[in-house]
């Protein structure tokens, strides 16, 4: 068996009294596209932030390419992070930089590439997400939400990462733009041959961009399987979630998070 690209072993994370991750076990194989689904507050974002090193788990281990990454130093973390690309929920473009510099950021700052060369690649990546070269000169604030997402995607793939993370890629977009972004994600991940890990609660998006799905509920992975098997999971929580029913075993938490 090959080493999984990403592996989480019994990861726990809490904030104060609130337990968010309660022993998450997860494996993502190389080249696989896994989507984690789950309701709001189920710990999806926290899982992602633990892998990215933005949060440190209270216990448990996370491995990338078989290398443990919990508690590693800054320099090692930067080397691991250079394998990553990330599309943030709100795109998180740097509003002090024009669009092309946003896309080229990882190349110029991370890989110390020459600016002219980085710009060329940035424009190429913008074209790959369907944006013309003149968009590169605009400022992020001048773009619509859908265009910002496209630029965010271009930035995530600019360094040709081995692993790409997508945080709620379709949230806040109209259904058509959401589908366009889904198509772009599938295309970009396939072209790069990258491993993808996404979190979403949009089932249409999850079905489209994944080949495997994992469901997170109350800080634990309660089901994993192939995307086409999700309708016959036989797991009542999963059934309730994918059909979006208010009635069922999942009770929405209305307490303070």
């Amino acid at each position, binding site marked *: 068996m090959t080493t999984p690209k990403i592996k989480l072993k019994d990861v726990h994370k809490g904030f104060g009294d609130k337990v968010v991750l309660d022993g998450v076990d997860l494996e993502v194989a190389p080249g696989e596209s896994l989507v984690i689904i789950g309701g709001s507050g189920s710990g999806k974002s926290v899982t992602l932030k633990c892998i990215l090193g*933005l949060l440190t788990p209270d216990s448990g281990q996370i491995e990338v390419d078989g290398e443990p990454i919990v508690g590693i130093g800054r320099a090692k973390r930067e080397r691991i992070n250079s394998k990553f690309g990330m599309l943030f929920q*709100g795109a998180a473009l740097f509003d002090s930089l024009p669009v092309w510099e946003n896309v080229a950021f990882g190349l110029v*700052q991370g890989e110390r590439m020459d600016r002219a060369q980085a710009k060329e690649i940035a424009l190429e990546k913008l074209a790959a997400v369907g944006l013309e070269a003149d968009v590169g000169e605009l400022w992020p604030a001048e773009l619509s939400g859908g265009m910002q997402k496209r630029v965010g995607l271009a*930035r995530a793939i600019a*360094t040709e990462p081995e692993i790409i993370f997508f945080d709620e890629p379709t949230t806040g977009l109209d259904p058509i733009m959401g589908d366009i972004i889904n198509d772009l994600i599938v295309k970009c991940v396939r072209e790069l041959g990258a491993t993808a890990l996404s979190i979403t609660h949009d089932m249409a998006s999850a079905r489209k961009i994944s080949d495997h799905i994992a469901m997170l509920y109350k800080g634990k992975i309660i089901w994993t399987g192939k995307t086409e098997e999700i309708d016959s999971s036989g797991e009542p929580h999963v059934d309730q979630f994918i059909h979006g029913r208010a009635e069922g075993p999942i009770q929405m938490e209305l307490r303070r998070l």
Partner: protein
Amino acid sequence: MNPFQSVGKAVLGFLEATGKLALFTFMAVSHCVRPPFYYRLLLRQMIDIGYYSLPVVGMTTLFAGMALGLQTYAGFSRFSAEDAIAKVVALGITRELGPVLAGLMVAGRIGAAMAAELGTMRVTEQIDALDTLSTNPFKYLIAPRIIAGLTMLPLLVFVGDIIGIFGGYIVSVYKLGFNPGVYISQTFKVLEFIDVFSGLVKAGVFGFIVTLMGCYNGYNSQGGAQGVGAATTNAVVSASILILIFNYVITELFLTA
């Protein structure tokens, strides 16, 4: 809650905040002195702090110098000691008013802007995005700001000193009818190196305080628009108070040394 609990909670909260700030300060300073350096960003911050604050600092010190001249005349003429105006203005501006007023104005202008900018970057995940693009936010965002504050404030205050003394000159010569040559020669006679130098040391410390508080509050802001607002307020209030405290401490050090 019994009184012991609330006292304990307040003490623990204070200790935690102090520790957090100390750790942040240590990290910030250590990244200020270790490569890589972002020269373009440093230059931009220097222009923003040094050049664009000139009008504000100039106006403040000009009118402070003028008012100081008038007040000194009003007070000292009771003892027939009007001749002391030039000396009082020169010493008052260089040792106290120049650095303190410039520090407070820059706290309002720059500290607030930094807290708001970094706070917004935090809540829109731009700081997280920096991390995922293998760029250390401390190096990219915080070090250039702190170095710029530390180096530009003394320059600003030096210019402010000259303008403030000139303010006293205007009032003395054009309003009170003093001899311009005598005023200028008295100014140079009374001023010693230590007067100007102690003011510039203060300015450097205040520049560090303003930028540090701006960065600290912005970097750690949370909870959306309201959080950014609170961060901005905290940055200005804490910087202003610290400026006044350190002003006393440095004065004490220079006077007793």
